[in-house]
């Protein structure tokens, strides 16, 4: 990327020729979370009600796995349980461990646990980061492998149909969603008026794979998309951190008002500050019914309950066979 790049997208995030799905996830998911870990963690503290309810209805003494636990915000929700967290990002796991949680670094497709060990598991906002249907199913199967028959699994994934905080192009399921880091620096002048929506299906290969120019262009557009995005927990840009002077500094979510002052300082810098680097995370946005389809394709679980909450599709499944 040239030095003129106004978005400070660092070279590690340039698209590479012939990337495998695993390499793309490394580039557009793992590397990003590794870099944004402290800032990401500072915006993640309030449990989503459906997850909290799920954990609180688990019998005392149950043993659970939080696969893709991030900073571990769900691990202490019900102290009568014993939960083990895992994440690809060692920086997020460090935060998790500092909080006294049991945590390890590992890949969701290759969990290091004995089969059928756990009474339950959760996968919150994780499966949507896998780049192909095969890998998304494999991720679900791997969770099912380590849960006992009769055990329940709660899965949350981002919805394509979300209307509240973002307005995704309904034809585009595979998108980059920018994460802007806070940073004190001179405000930038460049600003485009275009309103791109992720990567069009027909452009996906181009953008994700080879042509650096194409990728750079996609990224700039995507970053600009963050300018017009409305408020969301997943939109730190919208939480009072305009990349430029875009008027999207909406009131922060109610859940954010409990934030300690110190964290607020990070998340809501003074208006005179401009944003720092922008990192693009890959997401597969799930259509209604898509998550359930994946689950049923494993033939190892039934759907106990499902719903839509906070821009996510979620379902609770029960493992029916090994």
């Amino acid at each position: 990327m040239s030095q003129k790049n106004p978005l400070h997208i660092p070279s590690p995030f340039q698209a590479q020729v012939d990337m495998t799905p695993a390499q793309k996830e490394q580039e557009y998911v793992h590397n990003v979370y590794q870099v944004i870990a402290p800032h990401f963690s500072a915006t993640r503290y309030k449990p989503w009600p459906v997850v909290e309810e799920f954990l609180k209805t688990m019998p005392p003494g149950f043993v659970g796995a939080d696969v893709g636990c991030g900073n571990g915000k769900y691990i202490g929700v019900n102290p009568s349980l014993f939960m083990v967290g895992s994440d690809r990002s060692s920086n997020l796991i460090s935060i998790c461990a500092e909080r006294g949680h049991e945590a390890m670094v590992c890949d969701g497709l290759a969990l290091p646990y004995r089969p059928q060990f756990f009474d339950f598991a959760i996968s919150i906002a994780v499966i949507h980061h896998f780049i192909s249907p095969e890998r998304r199913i494999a991720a679900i199967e791997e969770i099912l492998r380590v849960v006992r028959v009769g055990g329940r699994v709660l899965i949350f994934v981002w919805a394509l149909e979300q209307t509240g905080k973002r307005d995704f192009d309904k034809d585009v399921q595979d998108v980059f969603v920018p994460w802007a880091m806070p940073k004190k620096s001179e405000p930038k002048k460049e600003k485009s008026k275009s309103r791109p929506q992720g990567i069009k299906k027909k452009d996906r290969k181009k953008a994700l794979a080879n042509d650096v120019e194409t990728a750079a262009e996609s990224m700039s557009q995507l970053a600009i998309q963050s300018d017009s995005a409305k408020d969301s927990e997943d939109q730190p840009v919208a939480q009072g951190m305009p990349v430029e002077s875009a008027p999207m500094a909406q009131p922060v979510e109610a859940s954010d008002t409990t934030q300690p002052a110190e964290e607020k300082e990070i998340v809501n810098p003074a208006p005179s500050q401009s944003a720092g680097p922008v990192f693009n995370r890959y997401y597969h946005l799930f259509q209604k019914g898509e998550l359930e389809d994946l689950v049923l394709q494993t033939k190892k679980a039934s759907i106990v309950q499902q719903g839509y909450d906070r821009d996510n599709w979620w379902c609770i499944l029960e493992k029916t066979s090994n």
Partner: protein
Amino acid sequence: MRLITHNMLQCHVKGCNANNFPLELQEVVLEQEEAELNEDFLRNMLNKLEYEALVATCLKLDINDLPATMPADAMYNDEFLQILHRVILETHIKSGKMVCPNCQHIYNIRDGIPNMLLAEHEV
């Protein structure tokens, strides 16, 4: 990493499916840290634990408190549950290595955190 977690870990290198548990602890630094006793959890663990592996692992770490076999009345044996609690929940591995007895893959533990990530060709 608590000792309980060691008891649930196995080597997961592609193709390493037999004799991949328990991972052998080496160069281990331990630390005791008090935790609240959760009897429900301990009782639930009795069926999940690979008890023999736990005892063998403990002996290598010079932890000699556990009986060689699990008492028949373990479920209601307060003294045993206390010991079990101290061993599996209050004993932390701060650093060391875990070596697969089958493929010899080494998993490092640093700052109390095991790194179970594999290289792409190992998955």
